[in-house]
């Protein structure tokens, strides 16, 4: 009050809207509509959050409960069992998934990140850039089965057989838009003043991109790559047309063959989950858990990498 008094001239005292405060009006009470509304809405928000978390947690819980039981060293090292055989594992499917993800990442990261530089900085208003951006946005919602059909037509028919390469291409089509768009965003977020600083130092456009834009945008780019890998690793539909499945290791006698049908976790889960054999169903659960853990580890690694960047 004293500060108010000091600020207001004496003559204006009676015009002070704070002079007469009804303290009853300030009291909190459920009988007041605004308080009631606030309490109800807070409750609603909590209930909805719990509803959303319910399925999420039950899936994770089921996964750990049913998949965890079967988890052992054997599932990582052994080949899938045949119909009534006991034991076995899915080592070849883990290897196949890893191989295809690595190849798909090697295809998409250079293409995606460099086109993102083009979209974000080199020619952002260019017709080509607008077309690419539009295509990428459409592709983010692209049904994954179509990516498989495309790779089937483009690679499988051309090379005459199902292969890890065809699977990688199919997965990279699904990964590309995510990497491209998140990298473009990350590069756009690099403050203009940093770009100005580089150019003011006499950096060429290429040097600016390599030495300032990409390192500064790296955490964002990595996040996009991890998201894309997480999506790509879990895709089944595109692999059914392209890498198919195999009961054998992708490498024979230490020689990796990328041009033969290759197992993957996603297709193994798809195959085994529908089988009438207890052992196979349990292996499918274990494979699902391993796939989720793989994605989780990738995500954590990405976060660790990006937080190592100096801020």
């Amino acid at each position, binding site marked *: 009050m004293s500060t108010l008094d000091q600020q207001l001239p004496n003559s204006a005292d009676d015009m002070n809207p704070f002079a007469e405060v009804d303290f009853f009006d300030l009291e909190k009470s459920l009988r007041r509509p605004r308080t009631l509304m606030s309490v109800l809405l807070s409750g609603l928000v909590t209930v909805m959050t719990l509803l959303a978390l319910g399925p999420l947690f039950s899936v994770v819980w089921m996964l750990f409960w049913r998949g965890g039981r079967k988890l052992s060293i054997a599932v990582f090292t052994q080949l899938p069992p045949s119909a009534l055989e006991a034991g076995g594992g899915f080592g070849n499917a883990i290897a196949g998934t890893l191989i295809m993800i690595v190849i798909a990442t090697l295809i998409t990261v250079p293409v995606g990140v460099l086109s993102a530089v083009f979209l974000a900085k080199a020619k952002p208003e260019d017709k080509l850039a607008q077309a690419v951006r539009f295509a990428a946005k459409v592709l983010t919602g692209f049904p994954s089965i179509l990516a498989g059909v495309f790779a089937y037509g483009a690679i499988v028919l051309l090379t005459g057989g199902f292969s890890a390469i065809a699977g990688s291409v199919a997965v990279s089509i699904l990964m590309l838009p995510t990497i491209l768009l998140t990298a473009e965003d990350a590069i756009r977020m690099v*403050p203009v*003043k*940093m770009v*100005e*600083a*580089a*150019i*003011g*130092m*006499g*950096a*060429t456009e290429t*040097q600016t991109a390599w*030495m*300032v834009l990409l*390192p*500064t945008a790296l955490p964002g780019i990595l996040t996009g790559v991890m998201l894309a890998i997480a999506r790509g690793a879990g895709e089944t539909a595109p692999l059914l047309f392209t890498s198919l499945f195999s009961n054998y290791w992708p490498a024979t006698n230490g020689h990796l063959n990328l041009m033969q049908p290759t197992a993957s976790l996603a297709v193994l889960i798809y195959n085994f989950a529908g089988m009438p054999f207890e052992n196979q169903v349990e292996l499918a659960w274990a494979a699902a858990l391993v796939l989720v853990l793989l994605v989780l580890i990738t995500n954590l690694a990405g976060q660790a990498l990006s937080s190592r*960047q*100096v*801020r």
Partner: protein
Amino acid sequence: MSLAGESNGAGVGAAPAREKTSPESEVVIDCHIRELYYGTFKAVRDTTIPIVKKSITAFIGPSGCGKSTVLRCLNRMNDLVRGFRFEGHVKYGGQDIYLPSVDPVAVRRYIGMVFQQPNPFATSIFNNVAFGLRLNGYKGDVGERVEQALKQAGLWEEVKDKLHKSGLSLSGGQQQRLCIARAIATQPGVLLMDEPCSALDPVATRKIEELMLELKKRYTIAIVTHNLHQAQRVADRTGFLYVDTTQGGRTGYLVEFGESAQIFGDPQEKHTKEYIRGEFS
């Protein structure tokens, strides 16, 4: 190949060709802007400013008078602005940097710049200062040059134990001195400073001003400032720019240029007098 050697060499080598023989008043940049457009907007006209070696030249004037635009002409930063068009010449050591044969990227390596907002890169303090050296593929001892630049920028004592820390972890004033260190690490011929203190508090501002007076012994400096007292404190010569609204647009032009003592003590033009007396801003 030493960048510094070349830039100094260019300045010294061009000197005998100029009429001014005294080494004290050797013109490093001879800037004459007849007309400067951004698209159809005429931003600056009729402005001639000589930048003299190892001195501080200040550009003052009301907002929108084009003083930053003029400064950015001197290292072709305006080339980044779409629709930028320039008539006139900017001669650096006698060489017109706006000739079609001149590479603006190379120009900026000789004429460094410090911006209004401190803009260190999101990397370590060391890498920030080493940036220009790496751009130029500097073969010598990078660590030594970084230390030297940080010392000259008066930042060494504060950061010598945390060179690997991010440049962004420093305070605003320290960041600006880091940017100065980054700019002088390549020992440029001229240092352009675009309102380097406007984002800083008075204490940091005072430090930068002291630094400028120190840097003047080695470098040629051109500075844009909103702060008249700053120009008065640090600048040897001052140019006053003003906005001409008579021809419909808002075109800036040079009203008066001279020794700071004369501009602030005995301004000749009516606009300068009014501005310095604070009758408008």
